[in-house]
């Protein structure tokens, strides 16, 4: 990855033939019970929306996490994904990190590009 792709610096949009706008993607995997808390953080920080994938499974710090429970979509892990302009990323990240000081979960931040920036601002 080039130097220009750090969150602080400006970064050229990916060359895909059509113009794309750089954005920051924040993904958090949390306990289903904590989804409302993270949702509040994301929305209060100025995100215009989010995607929620419930019943995700995997293996990590706390051992294995089984997905797809038949009659319990509150207690398994959920992945929340939001995409924000760089100027709002700091607020989202600060909030989610703070929340994860108290609760279990992981946070991923990455660069991404979107085709309709007006959806995210």
């Amino acid at each position: 990855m080039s130097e220009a792709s750090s969150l602080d610096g400006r970064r050229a949009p990916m060359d895909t033939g059509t113009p794309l706008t750089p954005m920051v993607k924040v993904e958090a995997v949390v306990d289903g019970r904590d989804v409302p808390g993270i949702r509040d953080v994301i929305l209060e920080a100025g995100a215009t929306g989010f995607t929620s994938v419930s019943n995700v499974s995997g293996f990590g710090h706390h051992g294995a996490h089984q997905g797809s429970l038949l009659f319990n979509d509150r207690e398994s892990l959920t992945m929340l994904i939001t995409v924000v302009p760089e100027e709002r990323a700091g607020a989202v990240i600060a909030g989610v990190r703070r929340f994860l000081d108290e609760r279990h979960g992981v946070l991923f931040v990455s660069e991404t590009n979107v085709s309709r920036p007006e959806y995210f601002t």
Partner: protein
Amino acid sequence: MAPTPVSALLHAGVVNGAGVLVLKTHPMLAASSAAFVLLFAAGVATAVVATSIMIVRTDVKGSLVWSTAGQMGFMTAQLGAGALAPAFFHLVGHAMYKAAAFLGAGDAISARARRMVRPGRHAPPTLGTRAGSLLIAAGAVAASLIVVDPHLGDAALVLAATFATLSVAAAVSGWVRSVALPAATAWSAALVGAIVLAGAYVAGLAVVEGFVVDEVPFEISAAVGAPGVIAAIAGLLVGVAVVALWPGSSGVALRAWLYTILFRAGAPLAVSDRPGAVAVEPVPSSITTHVATGPDGGAHLTVEQRSRLVADVAAAGSTVAPSWPLTTFVAVNPLGAFVDRPFDEALREGHRWFDADGALPTESYRRLHRDGRLSDAEIDTAIVEHDALFATPWTISLGGNEVDVIEIVRHDLLHGPIGRRSVGGPTGSVHVDRIVTSWCAAFADDDGVAWAMPGRDRGFHDAWRALARHDRAFRQLVGASGLRRLPAVPEHRLDAIAMALDELDVDEADRVDQLRAWLLRTPGWAGFARWCDDWAPADHAGARIRVVDLIAVRAVVEMVAPPEYRTRPLPVEMGAATSRDEVAARLDSVIEVYGAPTGRALDDLHGVLGMLSDSVRAQVLLAAHELRTRDRILGAIDAAAPAAQRSVDEPSTDRTVVEPSTDRTVDDPSTDRTVVEPSTAGLGTGSTIDALQPVPDAQIVCCIDVRSEGLRRQLEQRGTYETFGFAGFFGVPIRWRPLGATTGQARCPVLVTPQHEIVETPLDDAADAHLRRQTLRHGLDEARHHTKTGLGSPFAMAESLGWVSGPLAAARTLRPGSRPAPDRPDRTRALVERERATDVRSGLTLEERTLFAEAIVATIGFRGFAPLVVLCGHGAATVNNPHGSSLDCGACGGAPGGASARVAAEILNDPAVRARLLERSIDVPATTVFVAAEHDTIADSVEFFDLDRLPAEHAAGLAALRRDLAAAGAANAADRSSRLPGRPDRVTRRGGDWAETRQEWGLAGNAAFVIGPRSITAGTDLGGRAFLHSYDAELDTDGRALQTIMTAPLVVGQWISSQYHFSTTAPNVFGAGDKMLHNPVGGVGVLVGPSGGDLASGLPAQSVSVGGSLAHEPVRLHAIIQAPLDRIERIIRSNDGLRSLVEHRWIEVVARPDPSERWSVRRPGGTWVTWWPADASVPESTRTPVASVPSELVTS
């Protein structure tokens, strides 16, 4: 229910004393015209003020109280105007009306539930509706007065005509606005209704007057004649119009001011009795200097700071468990936020944050021991398991003897002095609590009071801020300097919270604790707020108090109030906080019995006693009681099994088992117990499949609810029936929209969000009658509601309706109904198939239906199908019972399970679904029919649904089954009656009795959750103490069914267990108090007593105890599972939530792979220890039933 007989007596009888006095002494009063003018003026003033307060009250009893005051004012005005006979008519009529209203106050929640499903058109009345209603009412009243002519004098005539017109007009308006009928029909019906109402009123007045004419004259000439009355009424009308219609922002301000004055007048709070300094110190201005202030004087948060604060608020909010509105009671673990830590530690947090105990008072366990219901051996085992210090035998030298340390600890537990209980929870001011809770109650009106809190659409904090400075209690609390500071507090809730935190100098690291402390001063409303934030359905139309708003309101109050009102979290408690004096006293007690310590024994003794604080001692005793309960249940199960299965050697009698610290140990050499590490030993699939059983006449699938156990046991004894236990929503998570309802409601565990709505549709015209009844009932409900809550309309209504409702109330008391008739339509069908492919929310596709069908069959574990398979949900029909939904099916989200059973039966009977099932190797014979039913757990009767579909060849089988079910129900009821107080012959009729506070015991018996085939519990009387979930490990080759059971029904069972547990051990925080004092508020819950306070959460005292005895024995849920241990272990390890519950011992797991092996107890870390009863004398010898409910446990 919430009958409040004392209030009924006061409001019906005592308050009328003055009226009677005036009536009796009227000749004397007549000599003074001033007396009448005074009476009239006082009456009008009282009526206006009290009725105005009444229309802003959201709690049922508060509103009734002020309504009485208003009615008394009206009656006094009647007297002052000389209308003596009408006053008498009012006095008696209102007395009866109010008595009935108080006695039936508990119906408010079910009325709210009805309005939720069938909401009226709540549009404000148009001018046309108002004018039309008034015209019709005036015409009807005038006509009645002319036709009947009750010989009223002028003043009395004006009063009667005016207020009768207002009442009838309100009724007409309420009816026309809400009834779902064509306008012409609605208005015609309204006209007829108005004539009937007006006629009945005037006729009633005339008849009563006729009776009393010798004693009470119709009217005596008073100084306030008709002109005076007319002038007063006109003045009032102008006043109301001015307040209601004053335009612009000054009008808004006027109404905000008046609302607040009235609201606070109705809920007065005395702040003068606050402890400490009375003089209000001005807040030092320096406090605000380090807050960056913006143009509006508010703190400026950067976006990052704000974001972190939002996260902190969310983290603080997650400390409190959600509390569902009582319309759909859902049992929760009140300490659910702490299930990620060990149970003991969570109890400490419970004490720190909620002031809640997790075990009964030590004295209760000592009583159990004295009564022989807790043995020395059980206590010893609990001591050994409590701490590694006691795992190996050692002694202390006392009086020259070596005394076993266990014996010393046991002595201390049973006889050592008990210290004073330390108070937990955040420290703070009850005065601030009361201000906050009173506004919560004002805001949380879901039921449409006549004058709702202004600005509710802006959220709780903003609405409150707009009114706060008018609030007398708030002004008094914060003083003049506080009021001056208020405008400087930022308007935005987050900024306000940030400023408050800043002023309190709370470190960022301690912020969450401070936010928690603010929230948990009022845990009831905090729980409701948590529900609003996280669990309220998206289409929830009622009030939402957000956690952040609740915190913000409190933060603002405390920021501007003097410092002594501030809330602080309790510091973290440092393990065993036993004072030196307490240890010394307990030391003396030991020495007295065993003699003085010698050598270093004193130090040892100090060390041992010092680590056993009072709360730890209570927890050890709780553990001992849990061991006993577990042993009894396992013992009873084993005792019922064939003797061949019990070939394992009996245990030796020395010290009980201790688990090794390493995971790898297979045999523990220190004892003769076998410790099984899951992956190594004895984990085969167990016994071979039994020879095929004969096909039963019918299979009955009941809910896992502990109440099903009795019915199943009784039924099995009466024929060749096979019964199963399965979550009572039958695996179909749906929203159910009953016939005529405008909206559906979730009928599944709250862990699942239903994706599909199933609509009940009529089969033919038979349903029309039901729909007509519903429409009519709704219209009449609304008509009554509008009349009752209006400003001028309640007077004539109460005085006339009382003559009807009074005798009805008497009849209801003398001859209580048997079972409230469920208002269900005949001949309808659950529309299960999706009608339009594009309508993704309604109905189920064939693929979805097949998936559900497969899950049902696989999870229940059918080995074959009987000709008749009954899916039997359950519910409990009660009257006058705010907590009624707590007796319904928990798996259906606090609703009856019949609808879910119908949907599941439709799916399983569907030939297309069966064809698909066959492709998946599930062969449901064509001759097998699934039938839906519902068990009323109070009446112990079973009602069947959709029988018109039943093929004729099943009629005989069904008839036999119904006969046996009736007999089984009767036997079960007789069994239950021995545990309930009151007449045994009325046990099935308690639901219809409006004076009954204890309709049934609900799930109070719950102690264990058995997962396994019925064969392991069949024949054992479990006394309603176990959830029973069917499971057949041999059929579940990939373990998916077990995973589903352990991650959903078992988790829900744990919530229920915890709800009962903490409602019993911490009744003041997690219990809802005495039903007699319940005061339904806003349609969402109950307050205890008319003066408000925190919202009561959890179960009422009558649900867990009777008199001083407990009906619920608080013990942690024991999961008793028959399945390969490695499979259980794998499921526990791979599911976060479940692992947390098990590892931290919120659930104790006991299992065996098959009946030929002994039970093993799972220890944290995943080691399994062979089970032997702690007290070898207890189990297996006889087939005595497990300890039955209620116990002889007595609370202290």
